[in-house]
């Protein structure tokens, strides 16, 4: 089996590897969003599993428990859970990333509890006291894992996990670098498949898969063709290739992203500090998510640069010609962030298409005309 077919297999059969490991007696801990450190779960010899939804399945059961004006991604995940699709999760951990996810913890826990359930509070504000607060919350999390597993937390194992996950991050950055050439050597759809595959498997296996994929990409014929618009995607959850494919089939290359399921979750390394929790705190609490609030700068320009400077670097380094915002409806923090980010990017001369969607493949087709019109404008 090639790495590409293995990746496609893992992407199509979501959770396949995690289910196998669960069946073999390993504990699988499911979690939402970017604020639950994989490394801590791995340090207890458990398998971290990033919970995903299913864009191609209707939300047919969740509405009896949660309002339809809640994030459809979260509702889709819960819909799968009450249908038994997440019965392989031994643990369930939810960070307070946003209003909907916070509510989801209680609704999920009440209706389909795992053996281990934990809520991780995460400050919205960023500053020294927030770091201390988050660290304490992580200590509570570790204590809860100790109580559940009967194991004693070993900081050395956390250091090892940090090293391992940093290796995975480095490999993913290496893979993302293959998107810099024009045309890029790897498509956005392939990247999405690889990232989704990695959400439900141990990091060392994912590293092996990434390495294999990079090798196969380098060995296959280099893509050629007319110049296509290079697109940067910004938004929240994209754990399905449907939208990325739509953009690429419309005549563009998706070359870089800032998504919860993309660079946002892996880009920055965890610093390898003497006390491993220090590194974890400084990395995870400072993830660039719209739900976090950076202290306001004195001028508008400085404030935007402070908030979006990293995106400015991304679009410059990956030579983006345009930016598409893909926002899953009812995400208040993204909805409020979007217009500010558009202002920032427009000043840099980058056109922006802002799309709000329902986390459903059945609505994707309706977006084709808008995407095509946007791409024509760029060309």
């Amino acid at each position, binding site marked *: 089996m090639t790495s590409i077919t293995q990746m496609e297999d893992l992407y199509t059969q979501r959770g396949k590897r995690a289910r196998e490991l669960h069946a073999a007696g390993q504990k699988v801990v499911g979690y939402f969003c970017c604020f639950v450190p994989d490394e801590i779960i791995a340090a207890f010899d458990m398998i971290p599993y990033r919970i995903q939804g299913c864009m191609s399945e209707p939300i047919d059961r969740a*509405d009896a*428990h949660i*309002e339809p004006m809640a994030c459809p991604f979260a509702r889709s995940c819960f819909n799968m859970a009450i249908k038994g699709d997440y019965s392989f999760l031994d643990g369930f951990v939810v960070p307070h990333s946003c209003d909907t996810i916070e*509510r989801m913890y209680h609704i999920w826990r*009440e209706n389909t509890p795992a053996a281990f359930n934990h809520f991780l509070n995460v*400050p*919205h*504000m960023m500053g020294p006291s927030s770091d201390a607060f988050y660290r304490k919350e992580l200590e509570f999390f570790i204590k809860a894992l100790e109580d559940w597993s009967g194991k004693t937390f070993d900081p050395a194992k956390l250091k090892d996990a940090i090293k391992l996950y940093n290796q995975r991050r480095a490999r993913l950055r290496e893979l993302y670098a293959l998107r810099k050439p024009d045309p890029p050597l790897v498509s956005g759809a392939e990247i999405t498949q690889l990232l989704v595959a990695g959400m439900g498997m141990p990091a060392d296996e994912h590293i092996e898969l990434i390495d294999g994929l990079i090798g196969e990409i380098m060995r296959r014929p280099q893509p050629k063709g007319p110049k296509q618009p290079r697109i940067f995607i910004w938004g929240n959850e994209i754990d399905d290739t449907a939208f990325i494919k739509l953009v690429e089939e419309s005549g563009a290359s998706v070359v870089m992203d800032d998504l919860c399921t993309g660079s946002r979750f892996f880009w920055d390394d965890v610093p390898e500090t003497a006390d491993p929790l220090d590194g974890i705190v400084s990395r995870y609490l400072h993830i660039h998510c719209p739900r976090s609030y950076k202290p*306001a700068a004195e001028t508008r320009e400085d404030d935007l640069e402070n908030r979006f400077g990293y995106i400015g670097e991304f679009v410059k380094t990956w030579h983006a010609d345009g930016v598409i915002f893909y926002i899953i409806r009812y995400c208040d*923090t993204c909805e409020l962030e979007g217009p500010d980010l558009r202002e920032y990017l427009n000043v840099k001369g980058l056109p922006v298409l802002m799309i709000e969607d329902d986390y459903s493949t059945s609505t994707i087709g309706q977006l084709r005309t808008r995407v095509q019109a946007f791409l024509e404008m760029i060309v």
Partner: protein
Amino acid sequence: MEENDQAKTTATKGTDAARKVRAMVKNIYKSCHDAQAEGKKVAYIMVSSQYDEILRAMDIVPLPTENYAGLCAAKRDMDRFLTKAEEDGYSQVLCSYARIGLGFDSMRKDLGCMPENAPDGGMPLPDIILGSSGVCDPRFKWFQACGRFMTAPTYSIDVMHPAVHCDLNAVRDHYVRYQKEQFEGLIAFLEKQTGKPLNKERLWETIRLGDEAWRLWYESDLLRMSKPCVMPSQDHFSVMVPAYYYSGTQEAVDFFQDLVNEVKYKIENKLAVVKDEKYRILYGGGLPPWHTMWFFNYFESFGAVFVIENQYRGFDPVEVPGHVKDPVEFLAWRTFLRYTKRHEQARANSGNPVVERILDLIKDYDIDGVFFHACRSCRATTIGQIHTKNTLGRYTDLPMTQFVSDMVDLRDYSEAQWKAQIEAFLEALAARKRPL
């Protein structure tokens, strides 16, 4: 909007106290204009951010942007601000309070002056903007977005509380410490903005006033257990204005003392809201539909009265330990205790503090049915209502209903649909009361 075009939106109140609130609302915005003329600082604020008494102690005049959105809806003058925000790129499903606020700010910026005939004279440009993460996410993101329309020093604080399953003894110090640090950061920011240090004796005084107003508010609600109902929910949704936006002032204390006296008088004299009270309804949660508050009176025309609410007066009085001698630490403790008041009760019973509160209200107020309002653009007060309803169903067989519209966006409201649903709910209430 021409005055004579305005549809009826408000409800007829049951108490004189509630009828006085309209003037207090007007005064909020007038005070802001006056304050700036006097050189005082005016701050955009978010309700229930737990910092009100600090602002009062530092002579900062609060300008509640959410209340302004509700006011625009009650005056049916919200569309132009909603539309402006949507033209500026804000989603039609984003918090409609935020859309009205941002639309207003955007229009004021474009015009270079106050939008014409802005309700109650409009919101002046603030000197300071103060967000928080208490209650919902838009409370700091909205104010961050304000930077697009104005230049004003902006600061936000976290207001955090533990999940219900936490061991409070284990997490208490941790939460109180963080909350205190958040308040201290805010105070340092305000001292820089005002050039004046916080006077802690003054803060103790505003806390005393704030707590006394809220204690009286609580007392008035306890009195409302009396049957028949003398103070309906539409009054509650008025009196939240002095409770929140005059918090830390003698005015608020006087207001609630008058309210308590009036409720007592009405009970003694059996001055009921409706002559023949058939059904006692609990407003179970969700922001009220400010655009159509007369629906309370519509219910009353069928003998159904909303007698108590699980909205706005979210906190019963709490007892901060006597060893706390610093007012900032007191506020941190009070925040923690307010948010965790029913945690232990919930852990011992339903697992859900909201359910516990509603069950208490059902019992204490002899409730016949529970009404929830789901707002399409408010995640914080809407998500969880169905779950709450489902959990309540394990403990009570009362009829419960969830109506859907929005707190201020009339486009999400259908009068015909509401009336049909009201009819069905009334039938359910009648069926339950009918002898077998």
